[in-house]
């Protein structure tokens, strides 16, 4: 029963058909119902093969729906969950269970289709985020990499990873257990990070929880504590270190619009740009961890990576190895907070050849008399430094760096030694233009990413791509870069 349309239909289904081929097929389908039928039959085959291949590996629930209906009442709820199929799944390892404690309502950037009902099985979330609602209505966003299992609808064991939980009255008492201690909801929104270096962290965004290790303590809005078996230690509150449902929705929409693909396409294009000095994505573990303290966490796209700096002095190193009269430097940042003081993003080492023009780039406030011009606080600034401190130039943005707290934001600076112009950009928009004089070559040698000082510097947050070009981006190019690389 071969048809002349077999090949074209398969190309269309696989997404390889050209516009002309697609139009040809559509015309045929409009005029000949048998072509339409064949198209649907191939689609059915495609869906069935996908399920068949998936069943062999992970036993997804989607196909099981019709077999589950009309069985146990609890399983009927599972059935609904199974019906709520997700487009982009993750590789987690499914162990069958007849109990169901939560339902996946949204997943972003996972790797394969999977069950939507969550029972007692242990789940490995390898990439992306998973948003689920417990049977009692607690809404939980789990961010990869993470591993968890439910012991009941009211009790979740977070083996590793981090989550945020929004717990309504109906789910009062919802408890997250970690190896360091447990967190019991008392009507609240909170976050738990089980990947902390030393115990687990709890941060209370709104309301009240009981944090319990060996001792028990009530924490309220704005409180944070580290639980480590025997004690609870006060921590700096990091509201923005957790992805909450609203941001998860934005990430979902961004991915749906193809932002991750756009970013990758743009990156591939720029890789051929001879002026590109470095594009550090922090995705290659081989290039990380050689020096410094940081956490490796999820970047702004599912499956990508970012560095997270939390404690004083957290940093890593890079060496772009370049000297240039013009540059554009860009970084995607997601700050948890921005304390007073100077918080480094990129800090060329002062001892590097004792050169003029070593680039320092930081969020800072105006409290230091060395900073010129002094106005406003927490600006995105760039500093060209010289060892003898005789030439100090500190152009700065107008916008406060605090505008970047809590969301992914693109900060960028261009420098042109010919004109002395330094231009600051925030999310692709020009924020301020400043001048430097004398006009020296900028040096990108060995540098610290993150904090360079262990006593007062506290850049708390994530850093995704750092990109440096040896040319000046136009305003239009900066806008375009932002729109193509933003996550939402």
């Amino acid at each position, binding site marked *: *029963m*071969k048809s002349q349309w*077999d090949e074209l239909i*398969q190309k269309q289904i696989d*997404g*390889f058909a050209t516009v002309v081929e*697609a139009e040809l097929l*559509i015309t045929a*389908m*409009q005029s000949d*119902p048998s072509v*339409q*039928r064949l*198209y*649907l*039959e*191939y*689609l*059915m*085959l*495609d*869906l*069935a*093969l*996908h*399920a*068949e*291949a*998936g069943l*062999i*590996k*992970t036993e997804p629930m989607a*196909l099981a*729906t*019709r077999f589950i*209906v009309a069985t146990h*009442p609890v399983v*009927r*709820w599972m*059935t*609904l969950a199974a*019906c*709520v*199929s*997700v*487009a*982009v799944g993750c*590789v987690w390892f499914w162990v069958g269970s007849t109990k169901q404690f939560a339902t996946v*309502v*949204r997943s972003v950037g996972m*790797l394969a*289709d999977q069950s939507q009902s969550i029972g007692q099985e242990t789940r490995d979330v390898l990439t992306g985020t998973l948003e689920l*609602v417990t*049977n*009692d*209505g607690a809404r939980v966003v789990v961010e990869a990499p993470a591993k968890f299992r439910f012991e009941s609808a009211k009790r979740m064991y977070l083996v590793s990873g981090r989550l945020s939980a929004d717990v309504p009255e*109906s789910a009062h008492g919802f408890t997250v257990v970690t190896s360091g201690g447990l967190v019991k909801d008392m009507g609240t929104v909170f976050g738990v990070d089980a990947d902390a270096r030393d115990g687990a962290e709890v941060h209370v965004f709104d309301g009240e929880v009981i944090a319990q290790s060996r001792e028990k303590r009530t924490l309220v809005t704005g409180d944070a504590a580290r639980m480590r078996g025997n004690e609870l230690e006060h921590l700096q509150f990091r509201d923005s270190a957790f992805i909450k449902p609203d941001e998860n929705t934005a990430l979902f929409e961004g991915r*749906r*619009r*193809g932002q991750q693909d756009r970013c990758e396409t743009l990156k591939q294009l720029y890789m051929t740009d001879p002026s590109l000095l470095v594009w550090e994505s922090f995705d290659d573990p081989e290039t990380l961890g050689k020096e410094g303290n940081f956490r490796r966490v999820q970047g702004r796209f599912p499956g990508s990576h970012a560095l997270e700096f939390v404690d004083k002095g957290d940093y890593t190193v890079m060496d772009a190895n370049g000297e240039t009269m013009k540059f554009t430097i860009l970084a995607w940042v997601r700050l948890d907070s921005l304390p007073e003081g100077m918080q480094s993003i990129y800090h060329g080492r002062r001892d590097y050849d004792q050169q003029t023009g070593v680039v320092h780039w930081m969020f800072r406030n105006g409290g230091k008399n060395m900073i010129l011009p002094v106005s406003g606080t927490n600006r995105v600034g760039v500093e060209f430094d010289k060892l003898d401190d005789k030439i100090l130039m500190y152009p700065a943005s107008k916008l406060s760096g605090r505008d970047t707290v809590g969301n992914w934001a693109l900060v960028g600076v261009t420098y042109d030694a010919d004109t002395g112009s330094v231009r600051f950009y925030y999310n692709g928009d020009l924020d301020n233009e400043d001048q430097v004089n004398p006009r020296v070559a900028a040096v990108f040698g060995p540098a610290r990413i993150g904090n360079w000082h262990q006593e007062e510097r506290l850049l708390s947050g994530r850093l995704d791509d750092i990109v440096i070009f040896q040319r000046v981006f136009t305003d239009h190019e900066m806008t375009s870069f932002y729109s193509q690389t933003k996550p939402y």
Partner: protein
Amino acid sequence: MMHPPDNSRQEEFLPLLAEIENGLRLFIRSLLRDREEAGEVMQRVTVILWEKYDSAVDFRKWAYGVARLEVLKYRQSCQRDRHVFDDAMVNSLAEHSVDVAKESSRRSAELKHCLEKLKENQRNLVLEAYSTCGRIDELAQRRGQTPMSLYKSLHRIRQALLECVQNALAKDD
């Protein structure tokens, strides 16, 4: 907002959904570019159906209407709102989706038999290509083939599988 479990509502809703699920999925898939997009819209449609379910309405008709609207919204939000299919075509696809999906369990069973009839290397190829991370270029590299030759093999296998399933269904009729 997801409703909490409600046994009586579920008891009504789930069989209705189960009855049309495969057809609805096929219909949505037929209007969109790829499985991933279709999965996303199916997810959204299922949630809407659950949240707004009203036992007084003709469920199938309503569900297909919701699906159609959600596909349209999705295409618009993705700036892919070219009217690829006209209304008559969409209606026709909806109708045929119901027909084709009616046989889905038989098709699945026959597909298993047809897969067994394939040569082992063909069966492995098609299942691997459809498995979780089965990217054609990576798969081709692993098998020492060019992506194009691998894709052609896959094309022939799928053609053979469809023919095998069609023959089996025709025989049973």
